């Protein structure tokens, strides 16, 4: 009977080998993916058992922090400023996961990032409780407050950038929401809050500044058209160009009219400078056709159109359509047809011109700091592109200053400061009131801030809305909050 016993012991060996392999597969090979499952309650409780890093303003004031909490979840995430920074921080909910920076920088905040490996090791060796890293943001609290106050109960968004570095100084999207309502450990309350937010037709969870809602830019896009024309030496700022009351377009019976239904200059002609000052549609329509679709698209790309940016929030790329026939090109040149932008993109256009044509990569996180505020990582400003030459940038700046001084941009004038800016009134073509735009930077000679403002659907002015009157004062308030004199 010994031979079958020996054979049977081989079977037993095979059975045990199968068990060793299966446990290895589960606890080693599949472990990372099993741990990362969204329905993994252990991972969730783990995340709540560590003090998550805070999200800080430049003065170390927390806009998201973890407080010790009684109950199974050891830490409660709280947002001391409530809705004001909601679209920057996002929320951290054990029911709904995370959004905003809470999601985009989760690995740093939770402490699991590979970049924090040495910190974890030293925490372990020194016996400190492991904590996540904190993020210190670039935001300017005064600018943020001014932007939110300016938008008030209107839907829209404001983005402000430091043109020299790309640092984002304000990022506001209205309506806002209270992330505390989603971060609560009472799951019924969290579900109720989320259901209310999802049922809200104004979609408060969408960060209009960078994502989701893409807007037609309207006349603010004329800056891009002007930049393309100047860079390609199609015209100079003083060139007389056709500017009739309405422009007949090839291949279509629908003409392109001016906002005030009048010619932009005597003899139905005007200079590029004046066309920009009064936002002359027909002149820019003609200019678009003159420049051509490809150079226009290339100029837009240099300003960042089509870039998938992470600031580290994911930015929806802005776009100029790939195929344009002449009437579509003329419409696109004045920011209509299917040109779509984020407010951040519009602010980047202003910022590039402000910074002598150099577009800096926008970013939100200035530095990553440890629990005792030791710096773990410091952001280095990076150039994204040379959008226009310094000469073209100077020309555009001159024209935009004059637009604010004497043209449609008057509502954004700041006494004693040279402001460069451009209005926009983007028709939606669906019967809804237009979106009001304003983008600007100041001081023009030594820029500290570039800003873009959009107010949806005419805001509180309805059909009477115009970029200058509605969005201009908001842009002005944000710039005043930043500029130090």
């Amino acid at each position, binding site marked *: *009977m*010994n*031979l*079958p*016993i*020996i054979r*049977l*012991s081989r*079977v*037993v*060996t095979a*059975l*045990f080998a*199968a*068990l*060793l392999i*299966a*446990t*290895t*597969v*589960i*606890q*080693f090979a*599949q*472990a*990372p993916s*099993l*741990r990362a*499952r969204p*329905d*993994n*309650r*252990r*991972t969730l*409780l*783990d995340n709540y058992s560590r003090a998550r890093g805070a999200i800080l303003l430049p003065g170390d004031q927390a806009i998201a922090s973890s407080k010790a909490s009684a109950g199974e979840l050891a830490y409660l995430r709280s947002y001391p400023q409530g809705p004001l920074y909601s679209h920057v921080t996002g929320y951290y909910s054990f029911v709904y996961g995370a959004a905003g920076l809470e999601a985009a920088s989760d690995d740093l905040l939770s402490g699991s990032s590979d970049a924090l490996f040495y910190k974890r090791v030293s925490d372990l060796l020194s016996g400190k409780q492991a904590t996540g890293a904190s993020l210190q943001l670039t935001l300017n609290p005064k600018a943020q407050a001014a932007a939110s106050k300016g938008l008030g109960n209107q839907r829209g968004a404001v983005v402000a950038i430091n043109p020299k570095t790309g640092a984002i100084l304000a990022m506001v999207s209205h309506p806002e929401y209270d992330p505390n309502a989603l971060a609560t450990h009472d799951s019924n309350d969290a579900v109720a809050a989320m259901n209310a937010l999802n049922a809200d037709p104004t979609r408060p969870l969408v960060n209009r500044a960078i994502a989701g809602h893409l807007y037609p830019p309207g006349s603010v896009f004329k800056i891009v058209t002007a930049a393309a024309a100047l860079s390609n030496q199609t015209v100079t700022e003083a060139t007389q160009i056709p500017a009739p009351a309405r422009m007949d377009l090839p291949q279509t019976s629908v003409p392109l009219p001016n906002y005030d239904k009048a010619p932009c200059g005597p003899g139905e002609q005007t200079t590029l400078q004046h066309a920009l000052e009064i936002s002359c549609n027909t002149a820019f329509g003609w200019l678009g056709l003159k420049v051509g679709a490809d150079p226009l698209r290339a100029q837009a790309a240099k300003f960042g159109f089509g870039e998938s940016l992470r600031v580290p929030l994911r930015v929806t790329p802005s776009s100029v359509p790939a195929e344009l026939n002449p009437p579509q090109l003329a419409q696109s040149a004045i920011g209509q047809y299917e040109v779509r932008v984020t407010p951040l993109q519009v602010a980047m256009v202003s910022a590039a011109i402000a910074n002598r044509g150099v577009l800096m990569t926008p970013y939100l996180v200035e530095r990553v700091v440890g629990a005792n505020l030791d710096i773990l990582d410091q952001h280095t400003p990076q150039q994204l592109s040379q959008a226009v030459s310094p000469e073209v940038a100077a020309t555009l700046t001159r024209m935009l200053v004059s637009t604010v001084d004497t043209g449609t941009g008057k509502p954004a004038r700041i006494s004693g400061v040279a402001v460069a800016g451009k209005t926009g009134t983007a028709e939606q073509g669906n019967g809804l009131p237009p979106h009001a735009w304003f983008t600007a930077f100041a001081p023009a000679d030594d820029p500290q801030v570039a800003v873009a403002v959009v107010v949806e659907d005419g805001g509180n002015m309805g059909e009477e809305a115009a970029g200058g009157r509605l969005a201009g004062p908001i842009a002005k308030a944000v710039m005043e909050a930043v500029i130090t004199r």
Partner: protein
Amino acid sequence: MITTVETITPRTRRNVELVLCLFAMAIVLGAWVNVDLALKGVLPAGLATVAIGLLVLVVGFHLVLRWRASFADPLLLPVATLLNGMGLVMIHRLDLAGGRDSLSGNAFRQLQWTGLSLVVAAAVLWLLRDHRLLQRYTYTAMAAGLALLLLPLLPGLGKEVYGSRIWIGLGNYSFQPGEIAKIALTVFFAAYLVQTRDVLSLAGRKFVGLTLPRVRDLGPIIAAWLVSLAVLVFERDLGSSLLFFGLFVAMLYVATERISWIAIGLSLFAAGTYVAYLLFPHVQRRVMLWLDPFSKESIEQSDQLAKGLMGMASGGLFGTGLGQGRPWITSFPDSDFIFPSLGEEIGLFGVFALLVLYGLFVERGLRTALGVRDGFGKLLAIGLSFSVALQVFVVIGGVTRIIPLTGLTTPFMSLGGSALLANWTIVALLLRISDQARRPVPEPDGIPARLPLRDPAPAGGMP
């Protein structure tokens, strides 16, 4: 050249056993202290009492061996002690997580069962001076085994727990009679097969290289198959069914040395389970859970397997540390899922150690079967050790998704008195047989044999 024949004095290895037992207890007590320090920050209350109690029990058992089975295998007792102890530690750890204090908790009851099991096992060793005496009770064992196996089917007595009907309830106590049936049936199979093996192994015709048995000799395997199918269908337990049929086929193969029995057995089992799969929704559910425990339909049925897998994954290579994981998230973390609970807290390396301990236990059993000289002893040792191996495979294979999950207990570790009692009885029987296997054969003139007994020579097979 002159060849000298060296005399090898047979060694009992009892001292090795004592040292290993003390080592096993040190690990268990250390793990217990670890749990209490992690969860409560203080040393466990009653540490000294329990330590002394365990010491008395285990050393007492060891002394019974010294006295009554001095050549018994030295590894079986320490391995069983360590496995039993680690189970106790995990059950206690889950008591603390569930807010149960030491006296009302499951660990206290399991500790009492451990004590009782050790006493019963010692009594078996004490009273059963020679395993061959069990051959007298061949048909009593069969009757008892079948009765115990089918007892849960009795209305009023049997209890259905999560679809399976393998429990009986007596007042506050519930019992898995299948655990005891396993031993009785192994005794019966061994005694029966040693009587009939000649007929079953010699008669037959050749067919495609296999010597097939005569149709009239198929009776026993058909009977065993029908009983196992009855278990599958009526008790709804694939695990018990697989265990009993697999045990019988393995013993049949060892007794007859005919591969054809294995082929016949596997075909019968495959056919039976396939038909059961087609006919019974509960079998289909188990298969669905096995194939994709994370699908929406599966989670609606039971998220136990999914949670167990996520628990093991959270343990990773090194585990969270005892008392620092969350094994209670999985349901039945101290019985069906005690292995994933341990996987979570002691990690892949820890469960490797546990699997190696089980492997070692089975290996000592198989070695005993090789060494013992009588056919009944061989078959009994094979049956007992293979049943442990198969049960470990079925239950741990179930929680690690090698096979569909079934309701068997993890030997020595799961919460549950009947299983503990049965497994310690297996330890006692294996120790008894191994004592025979390793003991030197008295020579006719009364002088001890000079046989090298560390690895006893194959004994041919006949008693």
